[in-house]
């Protein structure tokens, strides 16, 4: 072995070490975040968070009932619109569109998914809030639907694409109408993946705050009226986090823990569904 080789080897080992250190640093944020989240939030997760309305500033106690239910309503309304339209678009892309249109649509979705959520909020403000002359839950849902659409389309399309062509051919051979093939055969075959996409898109919009600032706007009371302003969980967490009240900080961590449990649970659930489906296909 000559000196040059030793030098190369040592340099190589050092640089590989640097890469390993990078990998360790890369996982640090997640673990520190989760650690603090659980440490701070666990103590404030209580029944009252779900059953009580917020108290005026400076008074102790109170909960986030209106924000939790508000989030459910706003996300629910967005899902009711976003998922059918998204799945419909994905079906069109895989079953009916030619290769150019399909790739153009896919490109459009990729670009759409990169648009900042606050811009979608501005869009919903102009489209819904201004004509209605007041803030509303429905305008928040519109903003969230805009955000969730490309996510649903992309995941559904990828799942539908994975379904082997032979299934379609078999359907046509049997004389089944195309719409029936798409809905009963292809969609059903891709169901676990499509379900995964739905879960992921919902968990994506559940944490959105920026659009809510000037669409749903917030409401200290419990309101389930789509045409009135409504409070959502991430918005309330934001307001509490930047406030000076310790009690509100505690509630913010509790709400954050709730949100993270929901989102991480949904992410892991979707991976589990895919893994289980994969396994059942292979056995």
């Amino acid at each position: 072995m000559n000196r040059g080789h030793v030098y190369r080897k040592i340099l190589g080992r050092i640089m590989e070490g640097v890469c390993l250190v990078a990998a360790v640093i890369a996982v640090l944020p997640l673990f520190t975040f989760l650690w603090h989240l659980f440490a701070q939030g666990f103590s404030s997760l209580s029944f009252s968070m779900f059953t009580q309305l917020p108290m005026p500033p400076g008074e102790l106690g109170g909960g986030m009932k209106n924000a939790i239910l508000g989030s459910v309503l706003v996300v629910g309304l967005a899902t009711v619109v976003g998922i059918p339209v998204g799945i419909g678009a994905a079906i069109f892309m895989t079953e009916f569109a030619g290769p150019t249109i399909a790739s153009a649509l896919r490109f459009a979705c990729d670009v759409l998914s990169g648009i900042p959520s606050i811009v979608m909020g501005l869009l919903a403000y102009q489209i819904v809030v201004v004509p209605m002359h007041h803030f509303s839950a429905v305008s928040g849902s519109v903003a969230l639907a805009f955000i969730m659409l490309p996510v649903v389309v992309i995941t559904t399309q990828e799942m539908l694409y994975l379904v082997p062509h032979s299934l379609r051919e078999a359907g046509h051979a049997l004389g089944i109408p195309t719409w029936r093939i798409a809905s009963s055969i292809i969609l059903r075959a891709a169901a676990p993946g499509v379900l995964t996409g739905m879960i992921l898109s919902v968990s994506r919009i559940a944490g959105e705050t920026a659009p809510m600032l000037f669409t749903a706007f917030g409401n200290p009371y419990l309101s389930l009226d789509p045409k009135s302003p409504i409070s959502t969980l991430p918005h309330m967490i934001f307001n509490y986090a930047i406030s000076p009240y310790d009690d509100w900080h505690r509630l913010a961590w509790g709400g954050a823990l709730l949100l993270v449990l929901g989102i991480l649970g949904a992410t892991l659930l979707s991976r589990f569904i895919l893994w289980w489906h994969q396994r059942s296909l292979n056995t």
Partner: protein
Amino acid sequence: MDLPTTEKPGSRSPGPVAPPKAPTHAMPPLSLSARVPDADAPPPVPEEPRRPLATRFPKRSSGRTADLIFRLATGACAAAVAGLIVVAIVFMVRGSIPAFKDHGLGAILSPEWDPTNQKYGALTFLFGTAYTSLIGMMIALPLGVLTAVALVEILPHSLSKVISLAVELLAAIPSVLLGLWGIFTLVPLVRSFEVSIYKSPLGLKNIPIFSGSPMGVGFLAAGLLLAIMALPFILSVTREVLLQVPVSQREAAYALGATRWQAIYNYILPYSWKGIFGAGLLGLARVLGETMAVTMVIGNTPQIKASLFASGYTLASVIANEFTEAPSILAISALISLGLILLVVSILLNAAARLMLIYLGRGSSSPREAK
């Protein structure tokens, strides 16, 4: 969050080997960038014709109308999704017109923002957005690429799966929660760091990028949070790009006597630089429009300062903070015009990044973005 990509087996490096003795006969020169078909890549999935079978209507009498309706309905959905980009551009331009008519594009480049007194200069926000994104990318890009290298080349498969899952879960965390963590955990840490530099006997506080009062909030804290948010994207795209490097490249490197690092540094990374660049663009597009976490830690001061310690303001933050209480319709329009800037830049960056990745042959199997 990553879609279930099919990892190609056999793409892992065989590990460092002892360098062979110098060849005794002349070998034909190997072109490093030749895309030689891989001998031990798995047989490709049979390329199914993408021509849809449903182009012709069935000749049966029944089901034709239903097919037509179905096709129109799904076509309408697709048109709606594609039209959304057009709608977004149209409405944002429409909303910005009063502002443009009032003070034109040039005025946006002035550094004075004071809507109550009719001043709409956005230069401080453009600077803040650019500066925080720059800090974020300067941290996330090297970190992401080195981590991807570690995951693909160095670490065993099981460990790298766990680590990439951990980093991808980071992408699922909403921005407001990272901001919450930022306020109570990161900012005090950044402040202690800044205080130590401020009090440093070496006089470090006189260096321009360390000048100013150590507050904790400011460009550095915002840049760190943005780095955390860009990291999952850069990591997953770079990982996929590295996995696509053909085994023959690596074999060529080892055949020529390279150490593992030399193979990585001289062969694999240069091969993938376009993909890494695309990953960087995607990460940049992600952090430019980032609102909540930045708003919570940047200090909300419209100013242009080079120091990391200084507080600043970004385009997205000023919209978030001032939209609901802008003093006039003109101010609202000015804020919408800032949103238009964000929209146009994000569309251009995303389009450029995607085109770059498509050109590489990765096509559309790209990772999904969180907010």
